[in-house]
């Protein structure tokens, strides 16, 4: 079986506040993902290795980490698609405090999400009333709405957003995407008010259009596209900042 080297950025706060690098060699076969390699290390080399996972099928969003310098799901990243002649570098996500090894504090991410109030409030269209998405919005908005429902909240875009790194007031791509979903939901009672709300400081106009979010999203949700659409919509609705 071929072998690969995983170079992992480690931190054990119980022992030292200093992170360090550690290399592990693993054997791997066709179809093995980075997550399988991590399991192999945890089971037979170092039981203290910490990382999150759940579904191992790219639907739960637990196992995002930085793989060779870019946020990705460990379960979806096949070793066969990486250059295994060089060490595979695994680091915790950016823009969040590290708890241990590859586990980060999800608090800031979910706080940003909550700030856009991503839930549907009552008072909008009755779902029993027949409607189609096509009848309510244009093709691009419909496509982007469906993409916004695909988000698995894996935090990859939040990690790799340079703007969030420079200016933590920016709520980040996933929260903007959640706002898009909320604003375009056919049953939303207060779309314009919600749109106004994400136009303030830290909102959609803070985006610098690096487009890293589009690149790293494992579900092809295209958060920046949602941001661009919302910005245009805000200008048309007259709720954009001067």
């Amino acid at each position, binding site marked *: 079986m071929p072998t690969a080297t995983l170079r992992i950025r480690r931190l*054990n*706060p*119980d*022992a030292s506040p200093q992170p360090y690098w550690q290399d592990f060699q693993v054997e791997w076969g066709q*179809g093995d993902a980075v997550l399988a390699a991590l399991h192999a290390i*945890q*089971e*037979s080399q*170092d*039981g*203290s*290795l*910490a*990382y*999150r*996972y*759940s*579904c*191992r*099928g*790219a*639907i*739960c*969003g*637990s196992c995002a980490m930085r793989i060779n310098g870019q946020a990705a799901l460990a379960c*979806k990243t*096949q070793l066969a698609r990486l250059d295994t002649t060089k060490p595979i570098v695994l680091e915790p996500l950016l823009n969040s405090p590290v*708890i*241990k*090894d590859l*586990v980060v*504090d*999800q608090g800031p991410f*979910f706080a940003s999400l*909550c700030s856009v*109030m*991503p*839930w*549907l*409030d*009552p008072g909008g269209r009755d*779902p*029993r*009333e*027949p*409607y*189609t*998405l096509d*009848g309510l919005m244009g093709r691009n908005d419909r496509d982007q*709405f*469906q993409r916004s*429902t*695909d*988000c*698995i*909240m894996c935090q990859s875009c939040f990690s790799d957003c340079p703007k969030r790194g420079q200016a933590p007031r920016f709520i980040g791509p996933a929260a903007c995407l959640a706002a898009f979903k909320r604003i375009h*939901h056919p*049953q939303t009672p207060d779309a314009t008010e919600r749109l106004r709300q994400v136009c303030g400081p830290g909102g959609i106009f803070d985006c610098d259009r690096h487009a890293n979010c589009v690149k790293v999203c494992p579900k092809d949700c295209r958060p920046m596209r949602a941001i661009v659409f919302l910005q245009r919509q805000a200008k048309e609705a007259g709720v954009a900042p001067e």
Partner: protein
Amino acid sequence: MKLCEGVTTHDALIIGSGLAGMAAAIEAHDAGADVAILSKVHPLRSHSQAAQGGINAAIRPDDDWRDHRFDTIKGSAWLADQDAVSVLCREAPDAIWWLAACGVPFTRTPDGLLAQRPFGGQRRHRTCYAADKTGHDLLHTLYEQVQRRGIAVYEEHFVTRLVPGEGSWPSLVAWDVCRGEVRQLAAPAILVATGGAGRVYGQSSNALINTGDGVALAWRAGLPVEDMEFFQIHPTGLLNGILITEGARGEGAWLVNANGERFMERYAPKFMELAPRDQVARAIQTEIDQGRGFPGSGGYVHLDLRHLGEEKIAARLPQIREIAIAFGGVDPVKEPIPVRPTVHYTMGGIATDTEARTECPGVFAAGEAACVSVHGANRLGGNSLLEAVVYGRRAGRNIAAAARDGRPPSDAAAADEHRRITGILARDGTRRPAAIRAEMEAVMRRSFGLFRSKDLMRQGLQDILRLRERAATVGVQDKGRTFNHDLFLLLQLEAMLDVAWMCAAGALPRQESRGCHYRNDFERLDNERFLKHTILRRGPDGAMELSYKDVTIEDIRPQAEVKY
């Protein structure tokens, strides 16, 4: 590991943050209760979101909840309790509209009505869906509603002990994984909604976290568990176990063997690929075992979607395409998908009545962790999300209404559990749990899989008991407080070994074939002797005590076979 003194109290506590747990939390909150959820993962990581195909409800004019009820009872191989199925099917339409009002983006027809697709074992187009990621949309939508209400969520809190109240409220002990703390929480009502246990088989569609913790907690606390020998094996998993939805067959996909035959003709000529799951799974395994499967990787057959065309696949089954490409290495538009059966669903669970009550006052259970029983010996596709929502909501209303007299218990259980966990951490860590887990998985697949027989099951039971003894001596390498992944795995293994034992203890004496419990040595349904629920409870000395409970029969008379 730090021990936190005192007992934190709420009006109601929910263990588990999947669909059942969150539906319950929302209802309990709306009924005025201060409710809190505990989950060993973040709620959005729960396994409910892996559900692809949909959720059943008789909402079309040509459908009737009584027909849904009949299909469910027949599909259950007559083992479902008919009163419980009535609740499930009667409340289904209301559940769908409640979900839609919460914001679930159900797929609609060109006329703007909720779209419904055909699913196995059902005579109508009854399964509502949101593309092929229905569970994902349900889970995310309910989490939004949990956020909206500001419901307290103890994330990454692994509940390691359930304490029935003895003259006081029931309570639980939770390990805060990130902080490395153990604390006790109590409430007049505690709901167990921790989901299933498919990981005991290894080859499973279940998330890696589906280790049956809640069922094990309840059993250890002396509560009766029911029908744990019934593990549904889904016909179509990728070779690594990841699910390919029944919705694919609902949309018209074919099952084809290595000779190019649509072999379901021989097993269920009328329903073909949409016969109930147990029959399709056994058919596939039979094809493989009799040499008509494709060789390699232990054998498989093909699920062929190509004739559906790229447009329909992209519109109705986008996630299936993505999964097949990412995890199966094939694009279903161009090639058939290699599939074989994968363990999918735990029909058994904590015994409850139709109000989600267990035998123990103040302790409730709902969803896959519970056995009410609406699925009997075989669950129909589209009924699991439904059960989670219907019974989750019922449970939520009931935990909110639970009597608040009585008082919290002392924090003795936390101290006790802290001692136990500290003891595990102190064990020699050179012998690790992973080898035991792998052996357990192999034993379960060999002895309690699609085809069972006395000798194999007897051997399996002995093996599981031997593994339990060995597990008591393994330790962890990680001795630290913060996010001790090693300890997490060991505690899950303990739960899985309890569940494996329950499965073995229930399966061996059931001398018949019913639903997913299929025996080569007793190939027929035996309603005379075994139209009964298996009840297991932990005896005072830790033994597995077995008894039986009658099935609730109302108007539908069980037949001698389940024919499609």
